[in-house]
């Protein structure tokens, strides 16, 4: 196996503090034991509702948070674990495209300087060669090279996102994390950005993790899809398989919530009851059991393991026991 990036039992907990002495009264498990591996050149789509730990996972990948437990391997080398803390030597090879193109660029800096900042920090090239590279990278993302002299407020949301992509790509990364790169954009611009990302991935042979809560977007760009629920992995499957044949009850509910432009196929919507449980006080057993139509006593007490089911891996007792055949 040629896994570029591997995660083993990654956990991230945040302390909950209260009172004037900032006493720690609890822990929020934002990411609770996630393992995954991404092969070189592939795109992993990461979906799940708000608060399921998608963005926390992304931030740990690029070193913005150190994981509380578990380790991240990049090209077989330990990138981050509880001991290495925030020390990051692979900052060049893993880059991120942020969600909000309005806050991801320094408003006081010409965008060319923002794009070149990584080169400056890592001491790559001199001023002249950096300028040239900025021009090239701007063209690559579909902007005129002289746009580098302009300030962020002179660009539209879609253009800013192109600049955000340029900033990630100028470091010649091998792995790019896209944290909902299209959710702040107009629908018409979303398609442009998605196509740009797909095209760049093919041409530069990038490996990507694509985070989104829009299933249609994930279907368009991803090779594999990972569904997260309350800090845990619910299901991982190749994209076609997942959309054609969802296994985990949560994935089924998620897919059925996508509007389908076909009146013949409507009416099979699975409605989930209840709220997403609080990650401060997660339910025992399977995190999904309070909302799951297939839950039984085992689900309430035992955390399901990720087990292979056909081409996919699923963390569900019902699937394991064959109770899901409905």
């Amino acid at each position, binding site marked *: 196996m040629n896994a570029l990036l591997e995660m083993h039992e990654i956990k991230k907990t945040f302390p909950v503090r209260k009172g004037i002495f900032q006493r720690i009264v609890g822990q929020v498990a934002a990411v609770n034991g996630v393992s995954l591996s991404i092969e070189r050149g592939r795109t992993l789509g990461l979906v799940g509702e708000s608060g399921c730990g998608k963005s926390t996972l992304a931030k740990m990948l690029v070193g913005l948070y150190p994981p509380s437990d578990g380790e991240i391997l990049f090209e077989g080398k330990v990138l981050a674990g509880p001991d290495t803390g925030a020390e990051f030597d692979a*900052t060049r090879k893993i880059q991120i495209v942020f969600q909000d193109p309005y806050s991801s660029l320094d408003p*006081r800096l010409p965008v060319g300087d923002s794009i070149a900042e990584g080169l400056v920090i890592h001491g790559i090239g001199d001023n002249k060669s950096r300028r040239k590279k900025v021009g*090239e990278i701007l063209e690559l993302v579909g902007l005129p090279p002289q746009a580098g002299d302009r300030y962020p407020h002179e660009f539209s949301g879609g253009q800013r996102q192109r600049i955000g992509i340029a900033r990630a790509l100028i470091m010649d990364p091998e792995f790019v994390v896209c944290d909902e790169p299209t959710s702040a954009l107009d629908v018409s611009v979303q398609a442009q950005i998605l196509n740009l990302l797909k095209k760049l991935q093919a041409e530069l042979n990038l490996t990507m993790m694509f985070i989104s809560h829009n299933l249609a977007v994930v279907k368009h760009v991803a090779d594999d899809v990972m569904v997260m629920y309350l800090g845990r992995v619910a299901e991982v499957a190749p994209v076609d398989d997942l959309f054609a044949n969802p296994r985990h009850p949560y994935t089924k509910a998620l897919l059925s919530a996508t509007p389908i432009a076909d009146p013949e196929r409507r009416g099979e919507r699975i409605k989930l009851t209840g709220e997403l449980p609080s990650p401060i006080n997660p339910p025992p057993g399977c995190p999904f059991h309070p909302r799951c139509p297939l839950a039984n006593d085992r689900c309430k007490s035992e955390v399901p393991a990720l087990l292979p089911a056909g081409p996919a891996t699923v963390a569900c007792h019902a699937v394991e026991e064959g109770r899901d055949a409905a």
Partner: protein
Amino acid sequence: MSTLGRASASVSEVIAEEGLLGDPVPLWKRAWGRLLRKRSGQVGLIMITTLILIAIFAPLIAPYGPEDVLIGVEDVSRREAPCVHILGCDSSRPQHLMGVDGNFRDAFSRVVYGTRVSLMIGLTTVTAALFFGVLLGSIAGYFGGLLDNLIMRVMDVILGFPSLLLAIAIVAVLGPGIQNALLAISIVTLPAYARVTRASVLSVKELDFVAATRVLGGSKWRILFRRILPNALTPIVVLATLGIATAILDAAGLSFLGLGAQPPTPEWGTMLGSERNQIFSAPHLVFFPGIAIMITVLGFNLLGDGLRDALDPRLNS
């Protein structure tokens, strides 16, 4: 990057579609334009510019030296009322636009030279308070935790005292004099800068472009001083402009009480203080320095108001 050329997207298409014409406009240039369009900004800027010119060219404007005693030089009497020739004062009398003070000095020359002293006071105290306040506030806001608590609680203690009272106490300990007065004013105004800086840093440090620099491996100091601080500076600039007015007023107050600038320094507060008992017999000697203080404070306040409007981030869209 050999793939760059091939990958180049339809550049002209994007330009045509979203439009990128004209020269790049830096953010500060737009703010400057907005400042000049606002009435309060215009008036404040004109007043401050005039005061600065007066301070620079004081020796050319003032007919006498600020400490020249005119007894025996001219035929003047003590605390003589203003004598302006074009307003009908006998041209055989020496002209004194604001009269003569209790020590036979030309009040107008003293008020003109006082501009220097007051602007110097305003700028030095605010610069010192700004430097240390911004440093402490940004460290507190950026690093947080125990350091934050330590710094901000000390600031709270300073803020707990009425500012002028604390300034008086500091000067009382250090001894009267203009340098000690400046130090005292810097200390009592420092917490305001620290607080505003901390709040501003706290809000900016969560933005994605700061995270972007961290992802790229930028050092803590690069992140704090290159990314966060320049973007957190707007409210601090406004506060500092308004702070110059307060500092001048406080310094005048200390001098009035005899704790700041010592005679014969031509300081407006000192001038008010030394002639306060003659307010009924020679009102011109307290009137003109008072007006000078008011104009200066008003000018900085108007400029501060204009800056606040011009730098409002909501207008930056």
